[in-house]
């Protein structure tokens, strides 16, 4: 296994980091949050076209970079570190992964190029019922919460059908589709409810739809772990920096063991989180058999670690960390959201136990 980044991968990180620092610094993030869409569409298109990071796991023949999950996790880490709001997790992770996993070359050719280019926004949802009527497939049901469901152009829906489950592509402008932007704890990640009442959808060719879901879930777990690791890193930097300059009782607060030891624990936890992330991303690219366990380990470890880090980050800043103006709370809200978004702690642990056979 390989747990260190190559020079090229480090270069990618630098490129993404510079791009985000230049185009989407903290002040810009605050601005964007107040807009109707909650993200910067222009930046999104440039991420697809100029930077080329939306199609890292898309084959070159479909307009992607033909790179791997290690590369994508580098990008997700930087997004988790900066909390730049975008439909990356929905579109460049969930939707792309489902399209890669189904057996439908036509749909791949149709959707992957615009997704990779940032011209189309995709997402994935579960829980609808599909039936054939009026000359095609129709979907009914309530999907919630759907990540970036408020801005997605296409939703890939894992639905029950009369003959097992299936995957469907749903155009969000179709009739019978009603979307409601939900109120969220995390202002940097939009979630929506989508109500379907006989909405027309196209069925994707998939020999084993549940296996597609399972693979996509594992890959999403890796990408989410990357965001979590990035957030931990930024919280660590931010809080360490503050502990170095903030003086109370005549000493810099980082000299107090109460602060120093909390930061040391956070550092140790981050180092281990990086390690499980690298392993899971490596497995996604090089050892698919190891992916399910590796992805489950990554989420069992990273989800609570990231929240613990973000919570300590707020508290170690003291009063200033509790203000709206300081960024500490954004990491707190993101980390708590990510901790439950794909299931609770007991879900994560029992899934890992299933995979380990314990």
């Amino acid at each position, binding site marked *: 296994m390989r747990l260190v980044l190559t020079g090229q991968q480090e270069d990618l990180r630098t490129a993404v980091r510079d791009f985000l620092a230049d185009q989407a610094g903290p002040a810009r993030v605050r601005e964007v949050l107040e807009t109707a869409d909650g993200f910067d569409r222009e930046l999104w298109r440039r991420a697809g076209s100029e930077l080329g990071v939306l199609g890292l796991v898309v084959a070159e023949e479909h307009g992607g970079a033909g790179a791997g999950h290690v590369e994508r996790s580098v990008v997700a880490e930087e997004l988790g570190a900066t909390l730049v709001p975008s439909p990356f997790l929905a579109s460049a992770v969930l939707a792309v992964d489902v399209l890669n996993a189904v057996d439908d070359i036509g749909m791949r050719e149709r959707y992957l190029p615009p997704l990779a280019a940032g011209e189309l926004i995709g997402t994935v949802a579960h829980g609808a019922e599909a039936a054939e009527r009026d000359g095609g497939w129709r979907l009914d049901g309530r999907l919630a919460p759907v990540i970036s469901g408020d801005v997605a152009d296409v939703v890939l829906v894992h639905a029950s059908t009369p003959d097992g489950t299936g995957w469907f592509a749903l155009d969000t402008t179709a009739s019978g589709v009603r979307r409601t932007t939900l109120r969220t704890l995390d202002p940097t990640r939009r979630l929506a409810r989508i109500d379907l009442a006989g909405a027309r959808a196209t069925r994707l060719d998939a020999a084993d739809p549940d296996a597609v879901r399972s693979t996509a879930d594992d890959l999403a777990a890796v990408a989410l772990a990357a965001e979590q690791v990035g957030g931990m890193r930024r919280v660590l930097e931010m809080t360490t920096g503050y502990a170095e300059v903030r*003086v109370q009782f005549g000493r810099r607060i980082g000299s107090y063991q109460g602060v120093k030891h909390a930061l040391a624990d956070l550092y140790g936890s981050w180092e281990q989180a990086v390690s499980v992330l690298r392993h899971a991303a490596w497995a996604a690219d090089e050892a698919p058999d190891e992916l399910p366990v590796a992805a489950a380990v990554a989420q069992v470890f990273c989800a609570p670690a990231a929240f613990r880090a973000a919570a300590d980050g707020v508290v170690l800043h003291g009063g200033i960390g509790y203000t709206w103006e300081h960024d500490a*709370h954004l990491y707190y809200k993101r980390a708590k*959201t990510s901790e439950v978004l794909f299931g609770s702690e007991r879900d994560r642990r029992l899934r890992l136990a299933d995979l380990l056979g314990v």
Partner: protein
Amino acid sequence: MVESTRADSGSIEEFSRRAGEFLESAIPARWSELEPAELIPVAREFQAALYDAGFAGITWPADCGGRGGTAAQEQAFREQASTRDLPTGPFVIGLGMCGPTLVDLGTDRQRERYVRPLLRGEEIWCQLFSEPDAGSDVASLRTKAVRDGEDWVVTGQKVWTSGARHADFGALLARTDPDVPKHAGLTMFIVDMRAPGVAVRPLRDMTGRSPFNEVHFDQVRLPADAVLGEVGDGWRAAVTMLGHERVSLGGATRRRDEPLSAANLARLARANGTATDPQVRAELAGLHAAERALELFSVRLRQEAESGTPPGARGSVGKLGGAMLLWQALHAAGEIAGTDAVAWEPGDEAAEELAVAINAVPASSIAGGTNNVQRNIIGERILGLPKEPQVDRDVPFRELRVGTQRETT
């Protein structure tokens, strides 16, 4: 006001019964649905009635407007009050902190001027200690009060001031001598919050609400008799006041309908079907036990106080325990509510309240002394462990590095 409803006669049981009857009849209907601005006049009216009936300042000395009653009467009233929600929020700081300090340290004239209006809710008070660069280390504050003839001129900034928007007066801690060590150069003042040069700005916290304020002082002129206690003796006054704060924070029991209480989370679990999951049930039981331990500790402390052992620094145990309990509850909330804790329909007020509670969890570990400050208090004052080496105790304030300045002042 009928004399027979007055508090200062009869047995404890009788007192308690009268308190209960008074509260039953006097608490304004549906007050908790009022907007903050509408609440103030309603609250003032209630507080005046409370005072006139003899249930405000029960143990405060009669010569400055108190009732001169017994601790047992106070306790009896609190027990009656604890089962009801009272619209006394605006007066908590005045009654809990500023008032007792005025009683302890005020001149006769100050006590006469301020205590009775404070008890009757006619004048609202706030506390002006913390500054951006003086958080845990309050004594390193930099707001300065400079003598000008008989007057004092105040310049600087305070922060985390609750209730400043509606306050009539504030208890201000300011530096009057930067050439002596930090604790020695402070003085406490009574400041009229409507004086020229006082500006109050709401401070938005991480829940998105603004329960706190920044208060800016730009050349605010105070008369000589605004000094509370002695010039240069402000630290002792502040310690007196903070002692009152810790007691009131530590003694607070949590409302059972709080979003993060075990009872409420159990209701949520029953509603969303997770209540049959053994891990959820175990987590709820653990949370209940932790809540109960803290409640029982608080009862025990009160019973010990009644039998003559004052709580002293042990209030810090309650404060710290309460903060830690919230982190435990927050974990349970995530396990039970799942994505409902982080995404909800517009207009779902219960979900909104849960979210605000989740976002407010860190406040308990910070405000009123961080958890680490509480641990220092417990370690040093209760266990008698040695202090850290004190590097700034004997240095003139002028030469200290404070806050997040990169250079010395």
